């Protein structure tokens, strides 16, 4: 190992994996079309609580299916008119450890 590339480990690796899963669109990965989420498709739906609820369910489903290292405690998704996107909070705990629950926050925005 030359350390030319930095590798993330532990909680940071899990958080990176969560973001990768959520920002990967279905049919994007080779030979694994089901991997990923459809949250990016939802960003072009009306910016309201109904869309937020769908995103919330999608996030929980994707993480439950593809990230066995965590147990999702809660997903909160709220529309943000000012940012023209959705604020997402994911609360989770790492399975097999007695760490404090973790949280990851991000904004889902349309990119044109």
């Amino acid at each position: 190992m030359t350390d030319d590339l930095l590798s993330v480990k532990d909680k940071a690796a899990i958080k990176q994996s969560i973001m990768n899963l959520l920002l990967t669109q279905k049919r994007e990965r080779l030979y694994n079309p089901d991997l990923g989420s459809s949250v990016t498709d939802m960003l072009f739906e009306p910016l309201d609580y109904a869309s937020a609820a769908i995103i919330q369910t999608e996030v929980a489903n994707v993480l439950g299916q593809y990230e066995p290292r965590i147990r999702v405690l809660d997903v909160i998704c709220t529309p943000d008119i000012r940012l023209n996107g959705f604020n997402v909070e994911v609360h989770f705990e790492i399975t097999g450890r007695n760490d404090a629950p973790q949280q990851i926050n991000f904004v889902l925005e349309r990119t044109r």
Partner: protein
Amino acid sequence: MPYAQISNLDFKDIKTVLKEYMRSQSDFTDYDFEGSVLSNLLDVLAYNTYYTAFNTNMAVNELFIDSATLRDNVVSIARQLGYRPRSVTSPTAYVSLKVDYTSSTSDTEVILKEGTGFVASFNNRIYQFVTPSNVTAQVVNDSATFNNILVREGTFLTNTYTVNTSNKTQRFILDNRNIDASTIKVSVTVDGSTISEPYLLADNILDITGDSKVFCLNEIDDQRD
């Protein structure tokens, strides 16, 4: 490190082998989780391996006459073995016809020139036939009768090339596909002369000298000769 099954041609199997390799060392972790960056990298590596393996497999298949699927490759291998595949064969018919002069003539013979066309129809389809060589009939009592002259389906074509004597490997390519190679005739006219000399098809190089009037025929790509 476990035994790597390098003959895998399946993407998932290749990725599994790469994971097995990762498992045998401790530098990297989380390759087992599909969301990880390392899993993404393994996808790229596996796809690259899969692509190369598939391409190699197909290329090697084409090297052997038993498994080659592209005609050009089969022809190329057959050529090394001394074989030239048969070309398409033009349907042949024999026809008889009579030519009557409307007035008295002093002609003694009538020549049906090579390339003379005949049109036949069957089941609402038109079939074009040509005479592959000159046919002569004697005129008797102001009429000439051609008996059982051979005609072949297709079009009669003449291609003319200029020989470049400085090019020792010059090839003359007939651009039309589906030529009946058995009907190919070659004649050579020396510059400034009006007499053309026929050349014969050589099947092998035995008994050929520098003065032999022969030509060699090979099928090249796209079934051209």
